Each structure stands twice: as C-alpha cells, then as structure tokens.
C-alpha cells in the first residue's frame, strides 16, 4: 500500500519533517521502531488480508447464487470458507483496530513519544508476518477444511494442512500477546503529565480493555493449539475419544479464548465510535465513566460466557443455564454504550460527514448484531437456531457491521492525521451508503434464511431458499463495491487530497494537537493535560438548554 513516497511539496514551512519524511528508504521502514510507521505497516498488511479474505467471501456468495454446484466442489467450498474465516479472524480483524489504528493513535492520544517497548512492537509485527506466511502456506499444503475453529476429532483425522494452519494461528497469538502487553504497560506508564485515568479518551479505554483480554486469553489459545498439534502428531489422547480423550474439552479450551477474542475484535470498534460520535456532534460524551468502565466490564464478563457456544455439544443443562444467564449479562454494559452514544448525539451539533455516517451505520448494524446475540444466548432459542445462517448473520452483524464499519469510520477520521491529506467527502459518503445497503441486504436476509432452517457451511441447498440466497449474494456484491470505494477514496486522498490542517475536526484529544502528519517524536514539548478530551470550545457551560 502506501509507502513513504508521497512527500508533498508544500512542506517547506514545517520546521521539523513528519514521521513519513524524517527518514527514507526501504530499510528505514523495515527496522523502524516508530509506532506510527509500525502502525502503517500493520495497516497495509491487515488491509491486504482483508482484501484476500473478502474476495474469498465473494466467491462463496457467488457459488451460493444457485441451489446447485456452480464452480466449487463441496471440498473446495469447505476450504474456501475455512480460509475466509481463519484469515479474517487471525490476520485481519484481531490486529486491524488495535495493532494498526491503535499503534498509530495510542501514544499520540496519551501524549507519549512512543509505546513503552518500541522494539517489542516491531518484533510483534514480524511475528505477525511469520504467522501470515504460515497461514497462507496452508494453501499449498492441501489447504484446510475444518472451519476456523479446528474442532476435534475432525481436525485430527482430516488430511488437510491442520498443523501448518494451527501453528500459524499459534504464532499470530504471540504477536497479539506482545501487542497486548505493550499497550497495557503504555497506558499505565506513558500518559502525559495531568492525564489521569478519567481524562483518557475513550478510545484508549477501549484499547486498554482489549489489551487486557489479549494478555489474559491468548495464552490459553496458544496452549490449546499446542495440544492440538501434539494430539495430531503424537496421538497422545487428550482430545480424541478413540484414545481416551475428550473432544468437548477442546471446545471448552478453544472458546475460553475465542469468545473473549470476539471482544478483542469489537471493543476497539466501540472506542472508535465513542470518538466519532462525540467529536462530530460537538458535544461532550454522555456518560464518560459509564462507557469507560463498561469496556472493562465487557472484558471481565467475556471470560465467563464461553459455554454458550456449546449449548448443544453435550455440556450439562445446569452449565447451559448458567452460561445463558451470563451471556445476557454482557448485553448490559453493551447497551450502556449504545444508549450513551445515542444520548451524546441528542441535541448535538451533528456534522454529517463521512466518519459520522459510518458511526450512524454502526449504531444501526451493531445494535441489530447485539440484540440477535441475545436471541442466540437464550438456551431454548439457540437449540433451534444453532448452526444455521442465523448465527452467520449475527456474527457478521457484529464483526462486519460493528468492527469493520467502525474501523473504516476510524480510518476516515484519522486519515488526515496519518497522511496529512483530506479525503473526498462525497466519495466517502457514497461508500458509507453502499456499505450500509450492501451489508444489510447480504446479512439481514440470512437471519430469515437461518430462521427457516438453512444450515451453515453447505455449498448447495434446497430450492426454496434460492430467492433469499440470491438477494444475499447481490447484497455481497454491493458491499464489495462499497468497500472498493472506501479503498479508492482513501488512496486517492493520499495522492491528490487537499492538505489537512493539524486539527481538521476541531477535536480536543492530544492526537490532534500535533502536526498532520505528526513529527517523528510526536510532540515538540511535553504536553500537560488539564481537562477532559471532550471539552469542545463550542460547548455552552452555562447550563442553558438549546
């Protein structure tokens, strides 16, 4: 993607070169310890894998246009959806917001020169690259057809490249852990003087909660995949019932990580939305402390709900009831956030620009995703909906309608800061509209499909589902056009965009108090923080109603 070449001519009046121009040459990127450059490298890598896995998804949807086989065999279809899931989860969504945007934004927002461990940061990027190579290598080793969850005992008996794929996920986990450790320490130790916990932007609270989950959950994934690799190579008999093992134990292990992991994926999105909603409505965030602490509450509760993935896997009824109840509990802090965002918008001077459009899209799609999660958390309802398209639709409403939409909104919001260029508003809004229409057409339909009994993971289906599948497929094409519009708009901005001022949105948080793009060490002098990041100058503090 973008490299350091876009040096604008109008840099003459800048006293110090930006981080993009301070050093040049390929090596200055490959061995950089600057969090901003590492963030951009992550961004390029994650967007690349988003493209790859997205095209796989389009291939899946296109195959499903007719009820019969078109251009993929059943085995190919299994491999393609597995790869779509594994790449999207491990190489795109998990590192997208924290490692790409978060790396860039976190030290800037804290008023720090860098993250706490800059070399570790670079190391974690290269570990991510190794993981990416390993996961892509599975393509040449017979691919993978287990689904991204690697469930035993099938993952033990299938002839596909389970070991390479699980090793890839295992290595990606280390990258995630190192980033998490780095960010937790950075938030604790690198805050500018005067930045108390209650003066941190909510984006930081979200990244902090995410990093906590990364640190606490990912080691369990590591050991799970380690055991799976050993089980497959040595037949030690931990997961394989034929050897005396317990296959449900694998599911417990896996979801103990992977349920918190979906919060690794969504929490940073919450952080972005908190910023977008408040900056672009010129109003102090409603319920600052509630939003901040609800991020931490979600992080805590996320560790005790994993059993809702196993309602029909043979766990005890009592466990099912307890997990069902705990699952409902997650809805409380989540709802606190949604209500607070809506309350922030209420009476605000809303700017309908592209970041705000994405924030509004998020409020709609994420709320649908969250509420359908409550359906699935309901024990009796889940028995009916389990393993149907309803689950697929719910998951995508949260991950795409939530995280990806927030991520894109965040990209538009911080693009002027990252590259010093403004994007084309009209193109940005068109992309938001296309994403909204395409996304809802694709996945709203799948709720109905799932409710009527269409099971997930089939390449062919009964004729009565044909119309809805076709609607969904057409929606996915619209979504694809929307996402390419996003890419085009952002790339166009780097090359041809108008020069961005240091603070185009009139934000108060520290990331906007330095040049666009920032200088190499972020700030000329140590910044002293004296108030909330949401005290906009327009706010009327007299208490009068508008």
């Amino acid at each position, binding site marked *: 993607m973008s490299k350091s070449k876009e040096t604008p001519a109008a840099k003459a009046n800048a006293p110090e070169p930006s981080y993009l121009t301070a050093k040049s040459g390929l090596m200055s990127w490959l061995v950089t310890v600057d969090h901003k450059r590492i963030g951009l490298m992550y961004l390029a890598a994650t967007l690349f894998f988003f493209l790859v896995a997205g095209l796989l998804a389009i291939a899946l949807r296109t195959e499903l246009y007719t009820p019969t086989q078109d251009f993929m065999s059943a085995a190919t279809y299994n491999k393609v959806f597995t790869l779509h899931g594994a790449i999207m989860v491990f190489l795109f969504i998990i590192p997208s917001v924290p490692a790409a945007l978060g790396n860039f934004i976190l030290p800037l927002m804290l008023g720090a020169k860098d993250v706490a461990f800059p070399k570790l940061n670079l190391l974690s990027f290269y570990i991510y690259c190794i993981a990416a190579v390993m996961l892509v290598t599975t393509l040449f080793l017979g691919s993978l057809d287990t689904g991204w969850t690697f469930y035993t005992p099938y993952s033990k008996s299938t002839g596909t490249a389970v070991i390479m794929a699980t090793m890839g996920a295992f290595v990606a986990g280390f990258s995630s852990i190192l980033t998490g450790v780095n960010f937790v320490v950075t938030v604790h*130790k690198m805050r500018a003087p005067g930045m108390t916990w209650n003066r941190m932007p909510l984006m930081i609270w979200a990244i902090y909660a995410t990093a906590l989950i990364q640190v606490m959950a990912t080691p369990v994934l590591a050991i799970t995949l380690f*055991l799976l690799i050993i089980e497959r190579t040595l037949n030690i008999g931990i997961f394989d019932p034929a050897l005396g093992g317990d296959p449900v134990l694998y599911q417990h292990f896996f979801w103990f990580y992977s349920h918190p992991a979906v919060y690794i994926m969504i929490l940073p999105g919450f952080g972005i939305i908190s910023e977008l909603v408040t900056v672009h409505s010129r109003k102090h965030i409603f319920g600052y402390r509630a939003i901040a602490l609800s991020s931490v509450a979600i992080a805590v509760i996320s560790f005790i709900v994993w059993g809702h993935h196993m309602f029909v896997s043979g766990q005890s009824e009592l466990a099912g009831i307890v997990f069902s109840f705990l699952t409902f509990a997650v809805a409380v802090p989540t709802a606190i956030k949604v209500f607070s965002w809506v309350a922030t918008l209420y009476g605000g001077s809303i700017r309908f620009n592209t970041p705000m459009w994405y924030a509004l899209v998020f409020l709609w799609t994420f709320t649908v995703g969250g509420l359908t999660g409550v359906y699935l958390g309901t024990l009796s309802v889940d028995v009916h909906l389990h393993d149907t398209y309803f689950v697929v639709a719910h998951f995508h409403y949260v991950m795409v309608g939530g995280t990806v939409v927030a991520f894109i909104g965040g990209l538009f919001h911080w693009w002027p800061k990252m590259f010093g260029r403004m994007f084309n508003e009209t193109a940005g809004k068109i992309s938001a509209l296309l994403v909204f229409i395409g996304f809802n057409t694709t996945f709203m339909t799948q709720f109905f499909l799932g409710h009527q009994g269409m099971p997930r993971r089939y390449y062919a289906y009964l004729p009565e589902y044909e119309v809805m599948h076709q609607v969904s497929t057409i929606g996915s094409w619209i979504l694809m056009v929307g996402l390419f519009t996003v890419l085009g708009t952002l790339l166009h901005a780097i090359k041809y965009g108008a020069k961005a001022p240091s603070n185009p949105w009139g934000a108060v948080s520290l990331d906007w108090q330095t040049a666009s793009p920032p200088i190499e060490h972020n700030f000329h002098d140590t910044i002293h923080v004296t108030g909330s990041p949401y005290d906009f100058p327009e706010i009327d503090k007299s208490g009068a109603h508008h």
Partner: protein
Amino acid sequence: MSSTSAHDDEERPWFLAHHFDTVGQQVSAAKLGMWLFCCTEVLMFSGLFLAYFIIRTLYPEMVLGASEELNKTAGGVNTIVLLTSSFTMALGVRAAQTNNQKALERNLLITIACAFIFMIVKYFEYTAKIEHGLLPGNWYAAAEHGYMLPKYSRVFFGVYFTMTGLHGVHVLVGIGVLSWIFIRARRREFNSENYVAVENAGLYWHIVDLVWIFLFPLLYLVK
C-alpha cells in the same frame, strides 16, 4: 535509538531509552511488562494443568498406576536444585541492588549451573522412560517391555511429556536469558541504579521454578 533526540535539556543516563522521561518510568514500565508476561506464562500452563485434571478425573486409577513409574528421587532432586537456584537468583538481584559485582556474577553462575543440573537429571529420566517404552501416543510400548499398566496409561505419559517438556523448554530459555544477563554483568552494565534486567530475568526464573513446584507433586506424588 538511545538518547539521540535533539532536545535533551538535562543529562540522561546512557541506559535511558529515548521515549522515557525518567529512569523511574523506564524501570516501572519494564517491571509491569514482565509481570504481565509472567501472567501469560501462568495462564498458558494453567491450560495444561486443566487438561491434567480432566484426565485425572476421567481415569483416576490410571493416573495413580502410571504415576508410580516416575522416578520420585530424580524429581525430588530436581525440585531441590530448582529451589536452590531460585534462592541464588534472588541473592543475585540483591547483589545488583547493592553494587556487589562479585556476588552478582557468582550467584548468576550458580543459578545457571543449577539449571544445567536440572536438565541433566531430566535427560536421564527421559532416557529411562524411552528405554522402557513409557512414551506418549504412537510410541507407547509399555506392554512390550513387560509392564502391566492400566488402560489409557499412554495418555498419562502424553500429559507427562507435554508438561515436563514444555517446562524443560522454559528452563533452556532460562539458561539463555541468564547467560545473557551474566555476560552483561561481566561488562559491568548493572548497578544499584540500573538492575531491572537482572530483576526481570529473576522473575522469569521464579516462574519456571513455580511451575515445577506444581508439576512435581501432581505428576510424581499422586499416591
């Protein structure tokens, strides 16, 4: 990358990285980072301990019988060796704090030596198991060597080799880390102002010790 920033007003010690304001900030960041890393280690091993307890709950008699084949003496010796090394490690950190260069180097050496002893004992233990076919999974061949062990005993040896093997890898990494610290100590890099690297290496070593403290009774002293 260290201390090349243009606007250095006051004198910065050579070991203070460019992005920190004070030594105190750098030290507390390094310590917090290490503690978090230790948490991830404990969590990772906790997965294995959970697997152990599940297997033990499923087949209590099998674990009881198979565990009798482990060498309690070797395990006990290794426990003492590791506890001793943890003690000398703590003495080493103390020596760094008090600028006692000689004691620092001596204690680091003893710690490394203990780690080697641990691995040597482990080598003999593993060799004996391999000779008697007490191996995980496919290589389990106890019956051929005349053992009358309960059904599914191979699962126990799978767990045994996985847990002690992963722990052994940590000991090897510890040898590497401590040797690196020893070389830096020889270069006189540490003093009462700058010893956080010694302390962090010590934290890592204590975690390795701690894991063994739980592994030993759970695997060797079941009865």
